[in-house]
């Protein structure tokens, strides 16, 4: 079993991640974590001065890690 170059693994990992997440499916990468797309809706907020602040909708990459850090001594 030969050792795969890490750069190549990461590159293909990102390509596959993009492909899978485009279909709105969460993707779990073993040992690392789960990725999914979260949609934030647009929002209309009234500021203190009476003006309206309208934020656009947005699709954001969300990550839930499987990597666990050892507790600090």
């Amino acid at each position, binding site marked *: 079993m030969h050792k795969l170059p890490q750069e190549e693994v990461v*590159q293909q*990992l990102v390509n596959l991640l993009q492909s899978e997440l485009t279909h709105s499916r969460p993707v779990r990468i073993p040992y*690392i974590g789960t990725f999914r797309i979260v949609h934030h809706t647009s*929002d209309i907020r009234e500021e203190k001065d009476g003006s*309206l602040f309208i934020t656009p*909708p947005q699709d954001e*990459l969300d*990550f839930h890690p499987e990597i666990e*850090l050892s507790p600090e001594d």
Partner: protein
Amino acid sequence: MTNDPFTHRLAELLNAEPKEVLAALERLALRIRSELEQDGIAVVEGLGTFRATDGGVTLDPEPRLSRYFNRPYESLKPVVVQTPAGDTSYQKTDIVPSHETGQAEPGAEEEEGAEAERAEETEPAPVNDVTGEKEPEVPEEPETPEEETVEPEDAAPAGPVIPAEAETVPEEEEAALDEEVPDTGEPVVQPPEAAHTVSSNGPPPVEEETEPAAAAGEPEELDEFPPPTQKREVPDEAEHRRRPVWIPLLFFLLIGGVIAVYVLTRPIGGPTVVERPAPEQPAPADEPRPADVDPDAPAPVDEPAETPAAPEEPFDPLRGNAIHVDRGGYTWIYASLPDMAAAEEVAQDFRRQGFRSGVIVERTDARTFYRVGVGQFQTQEEATAALNQMPPLPANTPGNPWLRRINQ
């Protein structure tokens, strides 16, 4: 774990065994963890930056990756809609002193700043459009830049109730005119005053009637005005009380204007009617009966009745048929779809409900999106004011509508 579908697909892409891929992923995870424990941060090129936080591990995706997943909305940016409340009061209070002194510079700098802030709101000038349609007489004036500036003033106040508003704009413009055209002399200075007095007080004094003659009459209409001796020469007392500083200046300008009109009208010497556009306008509207005009005597009466009907069609920003891209303005985006047919179907559904709706095509770097807009408003304020009249979102559409400029 080798049965994991992602691992299998990654193995296919890498031409490797799933076990090898799993081992590579485990090594990657170990590397990330060790860097996080040592430095609190681990950068994986192409993926992003992992950070150690109190709550565990977070990931800041690379901007390129974030943009990729946010493609449908990547061109959208936050919008701040200012309240239009303070606009009118500001104009009323500040501009009178600058007019009296005849210098707009000291106060005008602040006013210009405020105007610049209001520029986005006023630039689309929905009021001008509307008034322009309602008042066909105004377009005769645009001969000089001064007269062009006078037009919106006459249209905007639409009544003698608020004289301050009518006064404010000409003052600013006068200041600008003084800078632009310093040596035009008396007749050039008069027109703005004449315009503002006409707009503020309907009937008053002689200046109104004589000055516009000087203003508009330089090239063409000089012969059209009657001799100044027939005009009323009683000045408006109300104006004297309000602005006593104006008395000598008004008299001076009045005399100059009368002389200018008198001198200019003399050589040409043909008193004619100023405007008779009414009988000329119906000409294009003769479509229904081009041949029957001669025998019917009342025909000219019918024609002017037809002409005003066409241009006065009001534009309802919310109710109507399609969105006219040429008209510009703002619309509420209700859906953003990658398929034109699907977007048009949604727009048609809104139109069936009576709402003005259309599809706005937007091309990003990678793809084309078809955004379904509802309503067509001249300003952001008008759009937000209509929010409570907007239709509900379709059942399968999350979130709120999004305000967007139609011509971006």
